């Protein structure tokens, strides 16, 4: 064990004052220290994308950042996507198009897709497949994830 550092993580607009070792990954801190367990962990080595969150407008692997590095940054997770009772178009599209089965990979895919579409709203359908190849899903065969994200992209462009 090493000494813990007191930090504040700002997740979905809310400050979480926590105390963590420097080695605590952002993924673990979000889940364990801040209790936001919607962000999942599937590999801890950057391949699966289950842990994807948005940090200062960039979709990133939260298992490959240390929590201490995220202090002072704006962190967004799946819990913050909906606006009160109104689901984010991406969430709605995943429900409408059966973009999930077990739901374990889903938060990561939602944050990946939202993060990229906010940066590049006009991204081509083909480039979207490249983007979605960042994360792994073992249930859906990706068919309906792709369909969902394309549908949401159209909605998000309208908004």
């Amino acid at each position: 064990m090493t000494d813990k550092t007191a930090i504040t993580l700002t997740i979905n607009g809310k400050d979480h004052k926590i105390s963590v070792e420097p080695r605590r990954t952002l993924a673990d801190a979000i889940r364990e220290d801040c209790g936001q367990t919607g962000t999942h962990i599937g590999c801890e080595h950057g391949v699966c994308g289950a842990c994807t969150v948005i940090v200062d407008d960039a979709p990133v692997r939260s298992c490959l950042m240390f929590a201490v590095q995220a202090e002072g940054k704006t962190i967004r997770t799946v819990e913050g996507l909906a606006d009160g009772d109104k689901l984010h178009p991406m969430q709605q599209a995943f429900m409408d198009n059966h973009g999930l089965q077990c739901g374990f990979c889903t938060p990561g895919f939602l944050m990946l897709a939202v993060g990229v579409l906010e940066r590049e709203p006009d991204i081509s359908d083909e480039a979207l497949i490249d983007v979605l190849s960042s994360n792994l899903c073992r249930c859906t065969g990706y068919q309906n994830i792709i369909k969902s994200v394309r549908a949401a992209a159209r909605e998000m462009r309208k908004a």
Partner: protein
Amino acid sequence: MKPAPFIRHVPRTLDEALATLAEVAGEDGRILAGGQSLVPIMAFRLAKPAHLVDINEVAGLDKLADDGKFLTIGARVRHAAFHEPVTANPLGRLLTYVARHIAHYPIRMRGTFCGSLAHADPSSEWCLTAATLDAVMVAKSVKGTREIRADGFFDGIMSTHLKEGELLAEVRLPLLPPDGKFGFYEFSRRAGDFAMSAALATYRLDGGKMTDVRVGLGGAEASPRRIPEAEAELNGKAPGDAAFRAAGEAASAAIEPLEDHQTDAEYRRDLVKVVVRRALEHSLI
């Protein structure tokens, strides 16, 4: 798969960073840049650095500038910076094209160009780029600044000639001639995976003949490098199938192939032949 404990240092200036590095380098202190290679290695506990010098807050290391001769890339410049061309010189397009092949979008949001070079994965696209273009690495430490040419920088699998306490502060990539052409091709089994072989070629045309040819190869040997045997097959020839094939054959014969469970030596030579030729074919598009 949780990293072993370490002490984190967060310098704000380069001098502070170098001073801290000088202090901790001897006790297995390491630089933390994008963390996209280091953190996985720490998660597997293949590395257990006692100190991490996090350079993400160091002022000035985000330099990304074209001075008419070189493109200078500071230690905090991330892969994603190249998603769009960073210079009007053909090098800008080259880097954008190559960047697309590195890992995945969220990893490119964090990983750094200089981190890739320091990490020196044999398959790294940026290492290949630096080797092919004869980049100049600018290493800084409390003892001063050293400039290292690419051919003297890489030292085998995940190893470089950076010395203890040295920070790779920036990399200078020579601009291409305005009429410079480039071609790139890599082979991997899945999207975003490290290349099982990759080639980058640049040249100019002079009266319909290729000149100033550079052919670099990555993922085939312990370190990426230029392959003079392949370049010799091209210089002074017209671009086309015959020359491109000859270059591929020459490269394939010239290498000391890396071997692993999905690539034996013969297969690696097969791949090299193909990636070199296809990189050259790409230059015509």
